[in-house]
């Protein structure tokens, strides 16, 4: 977590833009929350979902952050999506749902509550980043 699923029309967002959106979302999320970068997952889904707009950012985050931060985060994510893809504002919307951190394990560790990330967790983030690089990611 966080897990951001971008519902998009089929073949509407080429790879270069998907990669750029993923990087931008990582920058936005980590800039807003201080979370480690390897925490941030972004997936694009061309399934024919019935969202209220053709493009939809469906985020799942750890619970426990202030409402104002969540609202700003979603706004910044949508802005980043639009900036990269050029999609008009009226065609993009989104939501962020939340679940308890303790329900998920990542890298063999139970996720910490927001704001309670330890030095060990950031070392773990660095290790994952190195693994991704070694795997060609």
């Amino acid at each position, binding site marked *: 977590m966080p897990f951001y699923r971008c519902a998009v029309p089929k073949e509407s967002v080429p790879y270069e833009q998907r990669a750029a959106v993923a990087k931008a979302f990582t920058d936005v999320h980590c800039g807003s929350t201080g979370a480690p970068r390897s925490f941030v997952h972004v*997936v694009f889904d061309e399934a024919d979902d019935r969202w209220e707009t053709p493009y939809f950012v469906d985020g799942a985050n750890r619970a426990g952050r202030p409402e104002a931060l969540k609202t700003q985060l979603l706004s910044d994510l949508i802005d980043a999506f639009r900036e990269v893809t050029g999609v008009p504002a009226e065609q993009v919307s989104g939501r962020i749902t939340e679940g308890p951190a303790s329900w998920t394990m990542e890298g063999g560790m139970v996720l910490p509550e927001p704001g309670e990330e330890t030095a060990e967790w950031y070392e773990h983030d660095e290790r994952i980043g190195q693994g991704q690089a070694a795997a060609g990611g």
Partner: protein
Amino acid sequence: MSRVTFRCTMQEGQVDEDTRVVLADGLRRIAADLLGESADDVPVSFSDIPAGFGFRGGAPSTTSLVRGAIVGGVDQALREQVMRAIIDMWTEVSGCTVDELIVSAADA
């Protein structure tokens, strides 16, 4: 009807069909051993994220997700026991590292 379901999401090309059968059996065994479910009744589904559609930390992802849902919920100690059992089984069967796996066990 089982009170436990598993939804597994992998990056395309990372886990072959034969391995998925073994992983599904492993998940059902964990649900039986730790949660008292009838293994044959536990639904397990798999889906792939197409290559070039999944990212982690802004780079292409090699991460798999196993999402368990438990109707009625469990206490945290049992939840962690279930998640650790899944991680041990999944890494052994699939050959992925612990860093390439996210496991959740949510109350439903």
